[in-house]
Every structure is written in C-alpha cells, then in structure tokens.
C-alpha cells in the first residue's frame, strides 16, 4: 500500500476544507439510523427461528430427563398452583409435567440455573415426586472449561449419576469413587467445582420448586395428580401409574428425612 494509494487519497472528501459540525453530526446520525433499521429488521426476521429452536431444545431435554413419558405439558406457577400454558415467557416460573400414555403424571422436569466455574450453568432435571428421585439431568447451557469442566455434560458416567438419585436430605457431591448413599454423586476428577455447581443448582431447584409442585388445587388437565406427599408408606399404589418405577431393589430412602416441603 504505498505508491498507488497516493493518487487515490485525494478522491474522498477528506482533503478539502473542514466540513461543518452539522455535516459530521448528520453523517453519523444517518449511519446510525440505517444501521439501527438493518439490525432491527434482521432481529425481527430471525427471532422466531431462534426462540423456536430454544423451545425445541428445552422440550427435547424434557424427554431425556424423564423416563418413559409420552407427552409433556408446560406448567406455570401462578397464585399458588400450576396452570398449563404453552406460550413461552422467560419471566414466568415454569416446569414441564411429563405424562405417560394413559395421561398419568410421571414426574416434572425442572429448569434451574446457577453460577458454574466460568459462567452461569443452566440445566434441566427430571424429578419423580412419588419416589422423591431425580431421574436425569441435562445441561442446557454452560461455558465450563473445555476438556475439564465440560465433562459435566460430556462425561456420560457423571451424567448417569443423576439417574435415580435420591434428593433427601439433599444431594451431595463426593470424591470420585466414594459415593455410597443414594443421595451422593461422584464428582469429576479435575472438575470438582463444576460438579459441585451442578449439584448445588439441583438442590437450589428443589428448594425453589418442591413446595410448589404438589399444589392442592389447579391441577393440569392431564388427569389426576399422583399425590406425591404421603409417599413414605404409599410408594406402591403409584408405581402402577408411574411405569418408571423402581426395580424395587434400590432406592431406600434414608429414614427420618421427610422434609417439610410437603404441605406447600
């Protein structure tokens, strides 16, 4: 860029006398206006695709975290009860109910978010109230360290830890290979902070939602709820309704830890 540019330098309106301030302001205003117009129209044009994709990803995740469900229903928490509502609104507090082919409630898919190692982790987990078990966990959004923290969704062994995980008294992350109780998760070696963050986010979601789920009124149209409260003694009647039920060997819930949420 030497020789040739010399001649061309004169072409633009630069070399002339000082342009008035009005002209400068006008140039930038017009540029800003045009730019704004373009951006708004592109935003409007792409927004439906973007939100539709996000909704699709979320709905697909529901089927991954709840076992053997046939259809789902988005439920919004209003006035102390859950109401079915399909239109997305990020402001609302919402969960997804998962139902089997007969229309019986299997469980809820609960979205939750919290700080990870680098940035907010957003995830969705399945919860079966009749057994007080987490049935699966799916990371929706995270920026954890590639190769280490991103194992929270790439390491299938870790993701598998969240299948049939007891939530009482609360979920705990323990050193890899040392989990014994049904409420313990093996943390990932080298990604302890991310693993603990996931567990914390789940507990956080439980704290926020468990009291709201078995609301006394306003149940979704999908038949009756599988009354989750008295599950201590009454696991059996509901297992008929929830085909996901235990291969009744494992989930011995720790006795004496029936939390208080129940009343709502």
């Amino acid at each position, binding site marked *: 860029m030497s*020789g*040739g540019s010399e001649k061309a330098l004169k072409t633009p309106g630069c070399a002339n006398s000082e*342009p008035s301030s009005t002209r400068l302001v006008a*140039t930038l205003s017009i*540029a800003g206006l*045009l730019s704004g117009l373009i951006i708004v129209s*592109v935003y409007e044009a792409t927004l439906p695709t973007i939100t539709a994709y996000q909704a699709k990803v979320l709905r697909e995740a529901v089927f991954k975290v709840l076992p053997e469900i046939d259809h789902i229903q988005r439920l919004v928490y209003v006035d102390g009860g859950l109401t079915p509502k399909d239109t997305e609104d990020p402001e609302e507090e919402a969960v997804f109910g998962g139902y089997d082919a007969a229309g019986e409630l299997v469980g809820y898919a609960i979205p939750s978010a919290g700080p990870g190692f680098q940035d907010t982790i957003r995830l969705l987990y399945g919860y079966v109230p009749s057994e007080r078990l987490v049935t699966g966990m799916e990371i929706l959004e995270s920026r954890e360290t*590639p*190769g280490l923290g991103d194992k929270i969704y790439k390491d299938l062994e870790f993701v598998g830890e969240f299948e049939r995980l007891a939530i009482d008294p609360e979920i705990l992350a323990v050193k890899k290979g040392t989990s014994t109780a049904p409420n313990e998760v093996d943390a990932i070696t080298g990604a302890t902070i991310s693993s603990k963050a996931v567990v914390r986010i789940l507990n956080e979601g439980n704290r926020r939602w468990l009291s709201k789920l078995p609301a006394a009124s306003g149940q979704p149209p999908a038949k009756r709820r599988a009354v989750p409260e008295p599950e201590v003694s009454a696991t059996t009647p509901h297992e008929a309704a929830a085909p996901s039920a235990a291969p009744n060997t494992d989930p011995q819930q720790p006795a004496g830890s029936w939390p208080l949420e129940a009343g709502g």
Partner: protein
Amino acid sequence: MPKTQPDAYQEFFKGLWRENPVFAQVLGMCPMLAVTNSAVNGMAMGLATFFVLVASSLLVALLKRWIPRQVRISSFIIIIATFVTVTDYSLQALVPAIHKELGAFIPLIVANCLILGRQEAFASRQPARLALMDALGMATGFLFALVALGSVREILGEGALFGVDLFGPNFEPWVIMILPPGGFLTLGLLLLFFSWLAERRQKLAERLAEMEVEGS
C-alpha cells in the same frame, strides 16, 4: 510491490501469504486464540470474520466519498458493528450449535483490529474493486490461519479433526492443547514455522539471484 496501477490479483494474494493477517501482521489475536480449540470453531469464526470484513470493506470503499475524514473511524465502526450484529443473529438462527460454541466471540468481531485496520489502511483510500480483492485476500488468509491453528489443536488435544476420530481409543488426548495455554503454544510454533519458511524462501531467492549474476 504495487506499482502505479496495482494489480487486483496481487491485492488478493498478498493477504494469503506475504501479508497474512495472522502469520505476518499478527493481528486479530484475541479471537484467534480464544475460539480455535477445534477446527470447526476456527472455521466458523473465520467465515463470520470473512463476511464482516468483505462486506464492510466494500461498503466503506463505496461510501468513502460521503464520509468526512473527522468521523471516519466512528462511521467504520458503525458499519462493522452492523454487519457483526447481522452475522450474530443469522448464526444464532441458522447454526445454533456453532453459535453456542463461539459464544461471546461473535460480537467481539467488532473489536477485531484486522477489520478496522483494513478499512483505515486500504478500503477508505482505494477503489471498490481493489478494496474488495484486498478484503477477500485478507479474510481468506485469516480463515486459513484459524483453521490451521484449530486443526493442530484439535488433533493434539482431542485426537480428532473436524470431529472425526483419528487415532482410535488408545490415544491419550493432550488436553492442554485445547485449553488457553495450548493456543499460545500452537500460535508460537506456527509463527516460528511460517517465518522459517519465509526465511528459507528468501535465502533461496538470494542464492538464485547470485547464481544468475555469476552465470552471466
């Protein structure tokens, strides 16, 4: 070197090699190091930058007559930012998976000094045709560099290229290569390699010239 009438092809090819934005000018390092943890990400970032650079260069070259010199940088930034935002939304709508991987680095293309540099140094003082060729060349050079860096890091760090497993299950991936330090290491080694190549070529040319002198 460009003569009084610079050749359009020369403007294109200089960006690929002799004035390659990464290996010769060492510009645009921030996205370069941040997103090249795999070849696909490098390519996506390269293509996004490609679009922004070519579109902005062309527009700046066409509009330069109406842009007063005093507000040229602000105008360039407005033009670049518009194209970046358009790219951001389009990627989010068309290839959401890749958009998710690149994350914050798409909006940051605005701050890529390579793009503003080309507007100030070239597009704002050359005819549109040459500005277009220059932008195409520089953008291709940048794309090439990103894919090269991404490939090296993915091969060593994941044992794969473009997501295809190369070495089978017995390969122990060298995780540091896809972490930030790996970016610096790879970039340093690639810079070394390319300047070594350039030096060798220069020596070869000198020797040829000497032989010609002796021969005549």
